[in-house]
């Protein structure tokens, strides 16, 4: 099957053939031929020549978190036949940076305001979680477009705390 795979910034074409426990794959100009065992659901044991590589996958929709030799890689698979798009959110496409709450917590302080100019690394919002106060910093120089929280607010993972442009 023909797929598109994205890892980090790089998107590549992927041609995959599965037969008799062997997988042949072409990624860009690189060609692989592997023996594969599915030792557990979503855990693949690859034999590349004599080399052994165990890959454990946790999947959600078509983004896959693959851990191999203790390192993990976030891979997105797109099946052109199914035209699944809109997957790579366009957050990074233009000049807006959102500051997200990485986990549930409570806002204790807001250190700037909409309209203010901030430098990369400047503190914007302080969130407390697990008794630990954590300063959310601006990822870049810019102007604060919006602050979406106030002290005392409870926030969930992924909530947009502020937007910098």
């Amino acid at each position, binding site marked *: 099957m023909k797929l598109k795979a994205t890892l980090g910034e790089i998107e590549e074409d992927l041609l995959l053939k599965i*037969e008799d426990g062997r997988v042949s*794959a072409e990624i860009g100009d690189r060609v692989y031929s592997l023996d594969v065992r599915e030792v557990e659901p979503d855990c*693949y044991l690859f034999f590349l020549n004599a080399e052994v590589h165990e890959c454990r996958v946790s999947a959600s929709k078509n983004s896959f978190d693959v*851990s191999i*030799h203790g390192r993990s890689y976030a891979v997105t*698979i797109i099946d052109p036949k199914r035209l699944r798009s809109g997957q790579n959110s366009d957050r990074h496409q233009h000049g807006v940076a959102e500051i997200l709450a990485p*986990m549930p917590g409570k806002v204790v302080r807001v250190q700037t305001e909409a309209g203010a100019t901030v430098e990369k690394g400047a503190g914007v919002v302080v969130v407390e*979680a697990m008794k630990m106060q954590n300063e959310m910093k601006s990822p870049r120089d810019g102007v604060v477009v919006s602050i979406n929280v106030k002290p005392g607010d409870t926030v969930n993972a992924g909530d947009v705390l502020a937007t910098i442009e």
Partner: protein
Amino acid sequence: MFRKILIANRGEIAIRIIRTCRELGVRAVAIYSEADAESLHVRMADEAVCVGPAASNQSYLKIETIVAAAKEVNADAIHPGYGFLAESAEFARAVREAGLIFIGPSPEAMEIMGSKTSARRAAVEAGVAIVPGTVEPLASFEDASATAQKFGYPVMLKAAAGGGGKGMRLVAESGELRSAFETAQAEAAAAFGDSSLYLEKAVERPRHIEIQIFGDTHGSVVHLGERECSIQRRHQKVIEECPSPLNDPDLRRQMGEAAVKIGRAVNYTGAGTVEFLFSDTTHEFYFLEMNTRLQVEHPVTELVTGRDLVREQFRVATGEPLSFTQEDVDWQGHAIECRIYAEDPANNFFPSPGTITHLREPAGPGVRVDSGVTRLSEVSIYYDPMIAKLAVWGRTRDEAIDRLKRALDEYEVSGITTTLSFFREVVTDEEFISGRLDTGFITRFSERRASREVKTNQVETDLAVIAAALSYAMRQQQSAPQTSVMKSRWKIAARNAGLRKS
């Protein structure tokens, strides 16, 4: 020995204590919050009592509820573990008044050491040096500012009731003082219900070295040597060693004697730890604080001295004398511990709660894991995100580091992000391997790390992509009508494809 004890804690330390209970034939009673009903420490206990809702101040910190639970189940004693109520003299007193034994020091000793200011006073009286600083809590920001000027920057702000780095800030220059003062106060209030701070001159490139002491009710106080805990982030220890890489017997004797002096000064009983700041340049050491409880990092001392500290705590709490004298204590080899946190090193160590979908813990020669979780455990947002401690032993520090590398490579956790990847980098870091440590290590290491460009392994990333694609393909097959056939054909095929050219 006790018949039954209640463990007023959760997670790995509750399990650590349950293990010693089992070995001594003591029944172990766990407590748990509603969020913890299915936690491993409950599953491993003989009995368990729910003490309230998830929030610790409504459960694990509820003195009356916990003491009542202990009475209800007819426990003889209560072990507080570390954190939560472990250093609450009020709790120790409540336990005593309920006619139960508190497995720890006297409330009086806890009170003296509980306030850092009175602790510093006690140290001075015992003839042990302290870091130049205020002996009284700071009255106000102005007071702080004036005092800082007096000692000269950099200075350290610390919570008088503090511990675990909460309410602690390093202030490099006057401009930073106000925001540091406010944040520290806020944290101290949140963590300890007491916002008072004190101030110290900051010792530069300091090592954090602590001494494990043990006292009994018959007046003997001994030490079990040092632990090096210089590797800290957010003023929290993440890697601890025994002995210190300095491995200097004279220094061990001097610091040990100083620690014992302080122990004697408060008639200390049970396990305690005296923390010192050691200056690598002057080789002077200053009393920092005393932790009147078992430490998170006690396993490295157990590995090197061959003594079970929890077993000894039980023994002392029953009124028996220590099972060993100072002369009996010896140190074999080198041990290192890493605290495995459910945190994302790539995102400023932010907590990463969730369900552990896969877990394989390292084992084999020289490896000890004290884990609070198992496969399918939930790591909740309510409590400290430490899920396990990995400790290794080797004949030498180098052998211990070899083992640590190996054990970290074996360690598999899926479903949550952990600090494992961070430790895998630390153990290959030249400065770590050289053993020239100080509390600034992690800052410097993180800078080195940031500057280092990451060379990705093309084959590895390609295999990751292929694995993802396979997983995708499997799902397509499963959702397709003829799934089962294809799936099973695939499985069978996979099974058959054994023979590899040799």
